[in-house]
């Protein structure tokens, strides 16, 4: 993980479909995230943590995601 006193920021642009955005927003409200951006950042943090702690399960899921 990078240090917390970084000075540089990048704007990350990604494409999401309408239903994917709904999924993100549902998660945001269920988990009381401040806004969409913080919800996405938290989901990424959880995803990274999950693939570290449950590597086998995460890589199986990744294969499914990529082949569907």
């Amino acid at each position, binding site marked *: 993980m990078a240090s917390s006193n970084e000075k540089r920021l990048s704007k990350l*642009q990604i494409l999401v479909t309408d239903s*994917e955005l709904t999924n993100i927003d549902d998660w945001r409200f269920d988990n009381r995230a401040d806004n969409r951006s913080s919800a996405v950042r938290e989901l990424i943090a959880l995803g990274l943590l999950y693939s570290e702690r449950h590597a086998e399960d995460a890589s199986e899921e990744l294969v499914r995601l990529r082949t*569907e």
Partner: protein
Amino acid sequence: MSIATRPPLGVLRQFSRAVFADRLIGDEMMRLTMARVDVDPRASSASVTDLMSIFLAGWRALARKAAASGGRPFTDSALLNALPTPPDDDRLVLLLVDVMGFSVAEAGRIVGIAAPAEALRRAREALVVHGAPRAVIVEDEPLIAADLRGILERMGVDVAGEARSADEAVRAARAALPAVILADYNLDGRATGIDAVLRIHQEHDCPVIFITGYPDRVLQGEEIEPDFVISKPYTPDNVRAAVVHCLDARRA
């Protein structure tokens, strides 16, 4: 520069972005398609025409496959399902010839049709500008600016502003809220056209057609790059095809 001597990946990237008039969507479509076809675009054996044929065939096959599958959220199929399908053959030939600079015969081979000249004629005749959309021209060379203005006005586009520097461009776009911007990529070595466009895009989203003598310098696959590029020297057909396609793509 001839299209055959340009880096094939740069040509493909220019085309993919041009189809959608959008850098992000174009680059994603290129990634989705090229990851699924069995070709190494860096291999010297593949000519740019071959690569373009493979890309187009791959895109058509993917669009069919994605429509057939459900598209579970956050999969590539979901993304593909949400993206527009490829334009019709006539429009593809127009983009390949008038925007990209392929010959009519090459365009026919890429699209896979027998009479590409007919398709090009139909596509050119079908170019319609709806309403009187506003455009802003960002160009520091007065003769070129006047030439562009003439081409745009003859096709029914209202040139609502002209700018000769990045600062002027931001002011002109703020005042005119244009439907499309035509910009010289390098404004006299000072602030470049893309600096102006980045600032404009913070408050007003519209497609920008960059006109440059060095298309591959601005098509490296980086984040801060143009949506739509046409090469210098341009013809009126180049400008017409680019402007109408940009307006159509954003309306769709």
